[in-house]
């Protein structure tokens, strides 16, 4: 029997882990389809390799430790897909393989499997890959040019016939000193995904569709993405000299929106209480913009989420759970604890 160790919202529903994960896969397929349209079939291969190696890694781990197979809950597929969508569309295929194995084996399974991981496996693996192969992880290809023929464009990733390009993030970062947004950043392009970037991150509209899907089926809690985005917007307003003009480019570029919908909302790595969730997501938002503005890297979403993941246990401890919560009277509390123990 499979017990789901996760937060309160799905008490009393018929949702099983497997169903939640299938909903997640459907929601993830929106940015995946957008990514394939924008970057071609090689991007699909990258995501597929990431997902497949995640599943294989979990099977391998189960086999090595002689535990029952846990791949049926589909969470490995979700982790692999999120990681794959976080990668540049032109990475060599060993990158998603190593990333997925790291995410599943080291971050998830070694800590006890689903629901017990301390940090988001995909975010951790992305940071791991970024620090490992910095050059590869920071070269992004330009969106496909379909004028030369659809098929030729779609397979161009396999033949290495692509042009690498600067991402809007790099432009935002370099223009932060002057506070004047360069002309290369057009909001419509950011919204539709006609920019360089990671496979799943570029197309804002597809991510928003996935967000709406997840909200309709009540898979994720709206508080997390909303407070994450609000905090990012506020910090962009404060930290960039350009002020208002930088808010939307900050929100729409890079992995911020994707992280808000798919990574911040991870059950086991977000706090249980409403207040905790708001603090967690807001902290991640502030850190994201701080990293983007001041660190050596262009992107900070996954590092920020990873860092905030680490204080989730503390948040759960500091902010008591309101559900069925009674104000503790000291001697009673110790008695209760003893009983539980």
């Amino acid at each position: 029997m499979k017990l789901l160790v996760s937060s309160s919202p799905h008490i009393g529903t018929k949702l099983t882990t497997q169903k939640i994960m299938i909903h997640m896969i459907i929601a993830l397929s929106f940015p995946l389809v957008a990514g394939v349209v924008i970057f071609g079939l090689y991007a699909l291969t990258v995501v597929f390799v990431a997902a497949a190696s995640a599943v294989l890694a979990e099977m391998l781990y189960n086999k090595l430790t002689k535990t029952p197979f846990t791949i049926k809950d589909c969470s490995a597929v979700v982790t692999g897909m999120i990681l794959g969508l976080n990668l540049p569309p032109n990475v060599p295929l060993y990158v998603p393989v190593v990333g997925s194995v790291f995410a599943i084996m080291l971050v998830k399974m070694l800590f006890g499997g689903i629901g017990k991981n301390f940090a988001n496996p995909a975010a951790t693996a992305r940071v791991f890959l970024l620090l490992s192969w910095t050059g590869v992880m920071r070269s992004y290809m330009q969106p496909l040019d379909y004028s030369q023929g659809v098929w030729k464009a779609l397979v161009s990733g396999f033949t290495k016939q692509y042009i690498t390009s600067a991402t809007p993030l790099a432009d935002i970062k370099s223009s932060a000193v002057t506070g004047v947004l360069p002309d290369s950043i057009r909001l419509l392009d950011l919204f539709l995904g006609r920019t360089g970037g990671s496979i799943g991150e570029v197309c804002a509209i597809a991510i928003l569709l996935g967000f709406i899907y997840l909200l309709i089926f009540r898979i994720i809690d709206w508080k997390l993405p909303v407070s994450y985005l609000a905090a990012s917007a506020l910090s962009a307003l404060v930290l960039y000299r350009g002020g208002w003009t930088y808010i939307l480019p900050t929100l729409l570029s890079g992995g911020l929106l994707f992280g808000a919908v798919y990574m911040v909302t991870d059950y086991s790595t977000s706090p249980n209480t409403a207040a905790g969730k708001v603090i967690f997501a807001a902290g991640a938002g502030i850190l994201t913009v701080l990293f983007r503005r001041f660190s050596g890297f262009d992107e900070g979403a996954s590092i920020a989420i990873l860092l905030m993941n680490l204080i989730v246990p503390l948040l759960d401890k500091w902010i008591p759970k309101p559900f069925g919560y009674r104000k503790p009277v000291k001697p009673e509390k110790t008695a209760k604890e003893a009983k539980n123990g």
Partner: protein
Amino acid sequence: MKNEKFRAVIEPFANGFVKNNPTFRLVLGTCPTLAVTTSAMNGITMGLATTFVLMCSNLLISLLRNIIPSKVRIPAYILIIATFVTVVDMTMKKFIPDLHATLGLYIPLIVVNCIIMARAESFANQNMPLPSVMDGLGVGLGFTLSITLISIVREFLGAGAFFGMTIPGLSDFAMSIFIMPAGAFLVFGFMIVCFNAAVKAFEKRRAQGGQAK
């Protein structure tokens, strides 16, 4: 009788590698273990420098164990250890300036390396000089072996090299996280796991073998 004496000398030496392995078993001296293990050469130099200091300080402390009043033993030990560390520092600066510059701050920091203090406190001030020297040698070489292993792994994964020689075909795929601090913790943790698992398996087999006999 002779056999017993021989054992008293050889046992501390042998214990230093497995039973008292400072890095993997006692988890002492983690600062140099994490900081200087970016390349195998660094690791081996650091280990040998520590071994030298450990041997000399163990010898002196063991010789002076009845003279040093127990109330001031810690300052006395630190004086002795610092002397040898400075000797090592000056010698390295003269003869291997490049490595000295690489290891930099971590050579003077051997003074506060807790392996040396631990061996002085728990072994040298209770034992005869010869076993103390052997203990220093054993623990020191155990430390050298461990941090060299860690640094070989880190250099191999992080720079695609082996003792400074780049391995063609591999250095292009080097994962630079392994020469960063995060990678140091990862490799250190996994080496502890592997070492202790291997020791456990070995002991289990030996116990079974003993029963069969």
